[in-house]
Each structure stands twice: as structure tokens, then as C-alpha cells.
């Protein structure tokens, strides 16, 4: 039996593809750099590039100049906008983000209770400001248990939307409970959102759960209430 000769770049593409399918490389996350891939597969730069081109053509990765390549998220904002039942802001998520805080802390009693963690278990605390297309600012505050969000890197936050970020969890997200309320801008919020202290602010609190009902992530979203709205489809 003659074996068909497989080209190395095809083998590499196949290998990376299966890692993506196994969720070893997760949606929205960076894959190893070209240099790292060359070492990993003992291949030349052009071979690695050919492999990456296959993956781009197959819609599995997105290459960003100067940053590298990341696994294409399966969920896009467009799909989210069509889903029934999620409270979503009027604005389509903008691409300009500024990370205000990104550190690890203990969950504490309050988030420990919300996320079913012991007070001394570790969580990521992330605060970021998104500037949407019409120059409106949105402050998002994430508390993400380390156990469910392995390998979160600062770079990842700049490439993906909120939903893609929290969708990188293990176990996967299944359901969400959201509360929308009006509050008055605190000093901190008035500074971040460029509004007056005590101006009305929308606060959207979301707790995401896995399929077996475990709370996985807590997200708070704050924006100027007078310049935005929410749309809901109900049935």
C-alpha cells in the first residue's frame, strides 16, 4: 500500500485544528507565536506560515498584525443580538478598550457567596472601559474564578468581546441571570464614565451559570443612563 506523502504544513495545520477542536486552544485565545510553532514542529518560518494560512482559510483563526493569531470565537456580537432574551445594550460593542485593573485577589465573603467559593479562593478582578462607536463609555467589572478561567492573559481582553471572554470558561456557560437597575454615579464611576457625580447610571449585573447550575462568572456593566437604552425581545 502506498502512503500518500503528507506535506509538513498540512500536518501542522491538522495538529492545530485538532487542538482547537479539543478546546486546548480556546475561542478568543492566542495560539503560540510563529517562532514558538517553528520550535514546536521543527519547521521553517514559511512552513509555519503556510499552515497558518490554511487555518485562516478554514475560518479557524484570525491573524492580527503585530500581535499574533487567535482562535476565532464561535459567537459574534451579531449572533448575540439575535438571541431572544438577553438584555443587551443599544450600542454594538466598540473595539477600543482600556484595562483599568487586572489582578488576582481572594474572593472574599461577598463574591464567595455569589460564586459558591470559599473566601480565600482566588479570582481575577478585571475592570475595563470600553468606548463604543458613539463615544459612549461603558465600565465593565468582572470577577472570574481562577479555576474556571485558566490562562487568562492581558492580550486576550483586547481582542474579544465580553461574551467571548466569559465563554472561554471551563465549564462552559449555559444560563444567565441579569438584573438591570438605575443608580447614581459614585465618584469612581463619574470619573470613568465622564459624567457628573449622582448622574443616573444603568447597572446591569449578570451572573453566569454552567449547565449543572454552578455560578461561573459575575459581570457588572455600568453606563450613562441618559445616553443609552436596552432592547429586549420577549415571547
Amino acid at each position: 500500500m502506498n502512503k500518500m506523502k503528507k506535506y509538513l504544513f498540512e500536518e501542522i495545520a491538522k495538529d492545530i485544528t485538532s487542538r482547537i477542536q479539543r478546546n486546548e486552544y480556546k475561542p478568543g485565545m492566542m495560539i503560540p507565536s510563529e517562532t514558538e510553532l517553528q520550535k514546536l514542529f521543527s519547521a521553517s518560518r514559511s512552513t509555519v506560515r503556510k499552515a497558518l494560512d490554511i487555518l485562516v482559510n478554514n475560518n479557524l483563526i484570525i491573524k492580527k498584525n503585530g500581535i499574533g493569531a487567535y482562535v476565532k470565537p464561535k459567537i459574534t456580537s451579531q449572533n448575540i443580538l439575535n438571541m431572544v432574551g438577553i438584555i443587551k445594550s443599544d450600542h454594538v460593542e466598540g473595539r477600543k478598550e482600556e484595562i483599568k485593573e487586572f489582578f488576582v485577589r481572594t474572593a472574599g465573603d461577598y463574591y464567595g457567596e455569589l460564586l459558591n467559593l470559599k473566601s480565600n479562593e482566588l479570582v481575577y478582578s478585571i475592570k475595563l472601559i470600553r468606548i463604543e462607536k458613539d463615544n459612549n463609555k461603558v465600565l465593565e467589572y468582572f470577577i472570574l474564578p481562577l479555576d474556571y478561567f485558566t490562562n487568562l492573559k492581558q492580550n486576550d481582553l483586547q481582542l474579544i468581546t465580553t461574551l467571548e471572554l466569559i465563554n472561554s470558561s471551563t465549564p462552559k456557560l449555559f444560563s444567565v441571570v441579569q438584573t438591570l437597575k438605575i443608580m447614581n454615579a459614585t465618584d469612581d464611576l463619574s470619573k470613568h464614565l465622564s459624567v457628573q457625580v449622582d448622574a443616573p447610571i444603568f447597572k446591569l449585573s449578570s451572573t453566569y451559570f454552567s449547565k449543572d447550575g454552578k455560578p461561573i462568572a459575575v459581570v457588572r456593566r455600568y453606563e450613562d443612563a441618559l445616553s443609552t437604552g436596552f432592547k429586549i425581545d420577549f415571547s
Partner: protein
Amino acid sequence: MEYREISPTLKSEEDLKLQVRRGLSSGKYDLPSERSLAEKTNISRTSIRKSIKTLEREDLIKKDSRKGMEINKKHTINLLSAKSLSDELNIKTDQVSTVVLNNEFVEGNSEIIEFLKTSSSIFCLTRKRLINDEIFSFEQAYLNGELFPGIEKINFENKSLYEILKNKYQTIPEYGHETINVKKSDDFLSSMLNVELQTPLFEVVSKSFDASDQPFEYSTQYLIGSKVNYRLEAKNIFDYKDDLE
């Protein structure tokens, strides 16, 4: 990855939020004073004062000069169901009443006319809702009079509009779209809702369709912001089995 200790102010804030959360679920709404909070924990009075201010701004607690601090109990409205507001409010523990202010045919504006697909027969039901004798919302429901003959003769006082539409006209809301915005109350709404001028209100515009895709109701509701939380639960938000591309 940097590790940080939680600051005393943040800790005090989170402790208070936990107390609020537990108070809401147990039905106990009073909170210890600022001084006793400082004594019980090792946190400075300054940090506690800051965190109390933050929770006040978030409308989670309110300070009364006589009663001290207490948890702000809000009404929660569940979104995503085509239920009427009457059904949503917790009638088990609260006294809910509806006062009809007006029920008549009106001219409507271009958006209403376009949605209901009629310009000659727009019926408007104007109501105020009270919970435990406190004004909660001001609403105007616009209906296509051609679909509901005789509707102007019905007495809607303390009745559910959707109940009447179901029983008398066999119309049930099947699906719809809602938008939620915030508006500061003007003279008219301030007097309707008995609040100060420029109080932040939820403005909810709802467009409903029946089972045969016929638009039948356009409604505008104004609710006092500090009294309401909207809540939504959604399952299967990412459908892993389907190929979304």
C-alpha cells in the same frame, strides 16, 4: 499576574453588600449603625462611611434620620415573559391597585399609528399603579380599536388589561419587543408619580403581537427608578450544538 489585597474600603463595601443580600432574602431590612459597624469589624470609620455612601448611591440602602439605615427594598419585574405588569408584581405580599385615569379614543402619534396600522381608531387606556398605597408607575396602553369593538365601554378599574383581552376578545400576547430607557421626570410625570422634578424614571416602550402576528398593543410605562429592578433569566444562551456560522 499581580496579586492584590482587598482594600479596607472595598472590604467594607462588600461586607455591606453581603448584609444587604442576606437581609433581602430573609426579609429583615434594618442595618446596624455606622458606629456599631466600625466597632464590630476592624475597619476604620472613614472607610465604612465611604462604603455606606457608595451603597446609598447604588440605591441599595437608604438613611432615615429616625430609623437609621435600612435596606432599600425594591420591586422586581421579570422580563422576557409576555406577562402583564399585574401578574408580575408580587400580589402575595403587596397590595397592588390600579387607578384608571382615562380611557378614550385619541389621535396618537406617528409611531403608534405606524405600529398599530390604524389612524382612526386608537384607544388609549391611561392608568396609575400603586403598591401599598404608594405610586409605582404611570402607564398608557394604546390599542387598535378595530380589533376590540366596545372596548371603550369596559371598566378597567383594578382589572388586568390582558385578562380582559383574553377573556373577552380571545387575544393573547404571543411575542414582542421592549425598549428600556431612562428619562428624568418633567412637570407632568412628576405630578403623576408624585416625585421631585428630574427624578430618574424607567421609560419602557412595549410593542406586542398576537398569535397571528398582528400588532395589537403599544404601551408606554414610566416607573420610579429607585423602586424597581428588572430581572431576566435566560437558558441555553450559547447553543453549542448548532453551527452559528
